[in-house]
């Protein structure tokens, strides 16, 4: 799946987008360090204790990532994003593709069958894409989905029998929180006043 380039609209600069979310900038750098093969799951012990349960839960997460990839694709093809937002959307979609690949690997390790993505038209209908008329609409949807995804990953961790998968889910949640923070900065919304906002 490739994102189509659309004509840029200079409503929001890339520098402004990232600059308002300094945490996100740092986190992107951290992500590139962390992704260097840290997910060596093959040799861990205990992975087979309750394979069917963990595989099912990981497959649900995979469904979530399929939807996230589709959401950014729909956004990119909408034609309403300026170039800066589009470029960040492409970056975030690439993160979700990385998540998808890790989750597929995990399901296969447990002897499961990774769930496949649906047609993009099904995601468009489920996400109410026909109601997305502006860049602001798309950013609000992305903010909502990224927040939900971060919370979903954190909320599933206690149900996983294998701590290595718990670690993976925590890393996925951190990526989603990074996306959410950058998107909140892009629309100029304040960050939460209270600690422990996610989860």
């Amino acid at each position, binding site marked *: 799946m490739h994102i189509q380039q659309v004509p840029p609209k200079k409503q929001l600069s890339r520098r402004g987008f990232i600059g308002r979310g300094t945490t996100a900038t740092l986190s992107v750098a951290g992500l590139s360090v962390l992704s260097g093969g840290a997910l060596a799951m093959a040799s861990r012990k205990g992975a087979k204790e309750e394979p*069917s*349960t963990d595989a*099912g*839960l990981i*497959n*649900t997460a995979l*469904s*979530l990532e399929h*939807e996230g990839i589709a959401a950014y694709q729909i956004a990119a093809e909408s034609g309403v994003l300026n170039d800066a937002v589009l470029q960040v959307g492409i970056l975030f979609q690439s993160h979700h593709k990385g998540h998808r690949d890790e989750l597929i690997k995990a399901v296969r390790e447990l002897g499961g069958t990774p769930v496949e993505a649906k047609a993009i038209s099904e995601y468009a*209908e*489920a*996400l*109410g894409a026909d109601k997305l008329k502006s860049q602001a609409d798309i950013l609000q949807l992305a903010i*909502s*989905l990224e*927040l*939900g*995804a971060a*919370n*979903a990953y954190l*909320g*599933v961790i*206690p*149900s*996983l029998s294998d701590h290595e998968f718990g670690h993976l889910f925590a890393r996925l949640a951190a990526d989603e929180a990074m996306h959410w923070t950058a998107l909140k900065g892009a629309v100029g919304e304040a960050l939460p006043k209270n600690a422990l906002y996610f989860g």
Partner: protein
Amino acid sequence: MMLAILCAVLLVGAIAEDEQQNFESKVSPEIEGDAGRGESLYQRRCGACHSIDQNRIGPKHQNTFGSKAGAVEGFAYSKALKELDVVWNEVTLDEWLQNPSAMAPGTRMGFRLTDEQERADIIAYLRQVSEAAAAQVE
């Protein structure tokens, strides 16, 4: 010696009974939910996978309250949910949200909502949504 054993047995029994009461209190919330807060929480806690009017990662929630588990048309449920003989109400939803895997081993939903007030608020919202949907049908 016999007295000591008897005391130990009674103590263990008392602890077990106390734990049972604690469990029951967890699945019978006394806390009153606020549907307004629940709507906002629903987006934050459930919105990654669920919508009110669309089947997504999980089933839509338009008519959840008062309906049987695993009964949303057009959603491909796990075997665990199809076989779960439960009608969703305040008590069953509270138990479900605390630990879905404990209620229906093998379910694909592993999300746990640990905050009692948040569970009550979301359940109040789901009830409000379901009642509104039912009123529209009538």
